[in-house]
């Protein structure tokens, strides 16, 4: 996936910004100490084994997740099995996607129950691996929040199938104070609101096979169901975490994440947006764009400056993604509603 071939390795201008971002992302993840710390490995037992110095250094937030089998009904009447992280307790969501937030370097405690029939192993894309979690087990993970940006949490053992099965969550890393408008400690321009949009593509044949314990034929993957925040249009337009609600004059940071395989190209009606970071690395190649590249397993932060009122769709332009198994209108369409 290279946009051009003749660039100099030392010349950042000549490097595919998406691919280069992915490489830097992988390098940086190691260097910046993205880490899990394993707590207790038995179901609901005992106190978590925190690293003392980190405990003293930072207050803890506790998020509760369950890896669970979930059935979703689509507009064409089909029911697909997914294996998703389900947010429990007060864990926040966009749609039904868990969104964990913390400041860089802070400890996030994630208490995760595995209600699936197989062992899982949480993983931050571009980051470190967590512990294995057996079926029925509850494990407390202490997560050092990565550098500022948007990160995907998914599963290492499910591998390529984790995307289509929807096994993903989003980690937002931003300074505690002044993270929004005029954030002095934010490398992104100040913003008034933020939204998470997690794109997942699925092939019903794959999901059914994996759900029944079979290995899918990797050569035949052709997605026919497409979700944003685990929803499809028009449900995306009624979910407060997915309908992008804003006011003229505001700046909205869109944390766009592609957990899927499809190399997306997402079009904004009504507005151009400024791509701030790709895989948490600043980009300085593109000017304002109305259609932005979003490859699989990539995060991208785009700043929307709301300069007109109205209701406008946002959707990938490989248009089968705007359908439910071919039936338009559905799929990965969400709306911006600006007053």
């Amino acid at each position, binding site marked *: 996936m290279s946009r051009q*071939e003749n*660039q100099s390795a030392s010349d950042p201008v000549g490097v595919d910004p998406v691919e280069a971002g992915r490489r830097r992302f992988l390098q940086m993840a190691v260097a910046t100490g993205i880490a899990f710390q394993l707590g207790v490995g038995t179901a609901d037992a005992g106190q978590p084994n925190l690293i003392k110095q980190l405990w003293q250094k930072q207050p803890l937030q506790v998020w509760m997740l369950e890896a669970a089998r979930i059935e979703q009904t689509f507009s064409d009447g089909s029911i697909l099995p997914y294996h998703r992280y389900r947010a429990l307790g007060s864990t926040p969501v966009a749609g039904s996607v868990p969104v964990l937030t913390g400041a860089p370097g802070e400890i996030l405690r994630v208490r995760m129950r595995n209600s699936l029939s197989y062992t899982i192993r949480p993983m931050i894309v571009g980051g470190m691996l967590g512990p294995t979690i057996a079926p029925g087990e509850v494990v407390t993970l202490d997560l050092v929040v990565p550098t500022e940006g948007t990160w995907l949490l998914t599963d290492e053992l499910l591998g390529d199938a984790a995307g289509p099965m929807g096994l993903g969550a989003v980690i937002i890393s931003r300074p505690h104070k002044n993270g929004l408008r005029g954030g002095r400690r934010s490398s992104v321009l100040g913003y008034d609101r933020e939204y998470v949009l997690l794109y997942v593509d699925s092939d019903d044949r794959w999901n059914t096979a994996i759900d029944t314990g079979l290995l899918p034929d990797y050569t035949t*993957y052709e997605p026919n169901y497409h979700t944003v925040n685990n929803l499809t249009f028009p449900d995306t337009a009624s979910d407060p975490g997915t309908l992008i609600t804003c006011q003229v004059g505001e700046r909205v940071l869109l944390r766009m994440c592609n957990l899927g395989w499809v190399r997306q190209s997402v079009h904004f009606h009504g507005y151009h947006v400024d791509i701030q970071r790709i895989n948490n690395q600043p980009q300085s190649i593109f000017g304002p764009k109305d259609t932005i590249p979003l490859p*699989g397993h990539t995060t991208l932060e785009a700043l929307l400056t709301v300069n007109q009122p*109205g209701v*406008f769709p946002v959707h990938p332009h*490989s*248009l*089968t993604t705007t359908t439910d198994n071919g039936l338009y209108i559905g799929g990965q369409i969400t709306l911006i509603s600006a007053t």
Partner: protein
Amino acid sequence: MAGLGTIVQSNYSVVSRMSGSQNIGGQPVGVWYFDRGTSFQGFMNDRQFPSAHLEIIQGQTSNIMFQNMSPMDHTIHLHGLDVDQQNDGVPATSFSVPRMGSYTYQFLAPHAGTYHYHCHVDTVIHYHRGMSGAIIVRPPDSSITRAWDGGPTFDEEVLWHLMTYDLTWADILNSGTGTARHRPDVFMINGFSSAQARTDLYSRLVATVGQRIYLRILNASYQWGRVRLAGLPFDVVASDGRPMQQVVSATSWEIGPGERYDLLLTPTAPISADATVEYLDDWTGAVLGTAATRLEIT
């Protein structure tokens, strides 16, 4: 100038038609398209697939007087022009134009560049069947040799409207299970496969050494396209109607569905070779097929 720059104006009559026919992949296919009013022709007044392109002027109010002369509802979505909700052409947020109905889309184009328009009714099938065209916004002085105020100048200008076609979709009228998966078997530039595109006056890149060719590319396919100009280096100067923050020098460039890129090629030696678009599988990145035209530099 490969058919560009002959009509630059702010007001257009655009008519939708569902009675077209074009040879696609060696067989006649019924196509749906927009023409400029009376010609019963789409792209460059020469073919019905894809739709006609429009050239308008930055800073002026444009009026697209749309007549739906077909048996289905349609709209015109002005892709990338950031128009208001009323003129956005999305039935779910505004309205569709009923058969035999009309509406005048009105907007002001604030930036010179390469844009797109298409029907947004049952989009997955209407778009595929041909209801999409390019819009070029000229600078305020209507120049056809300068990309934008303060932007690069050029001697030749070519538009590539990238498309792929799944022949199993050829007779589909409405979306459904038949449009769940797009498996293209025809790969085109400006509605032509390689055999025709190599001789197509509107697709070929023809210039003399030292001249500057401005290539506007709109990807109206459902796949990513990788563009190569016979290995020659070119500058990527604009995307989606805005200058690049940094001009990128490259020998190939990948363009996502719905994206537009403007490339500037300044050949330094004679060459006669293929210029190509490789269409890529969305998830594996494999080349599904290639469309080629000719690069002729004398």
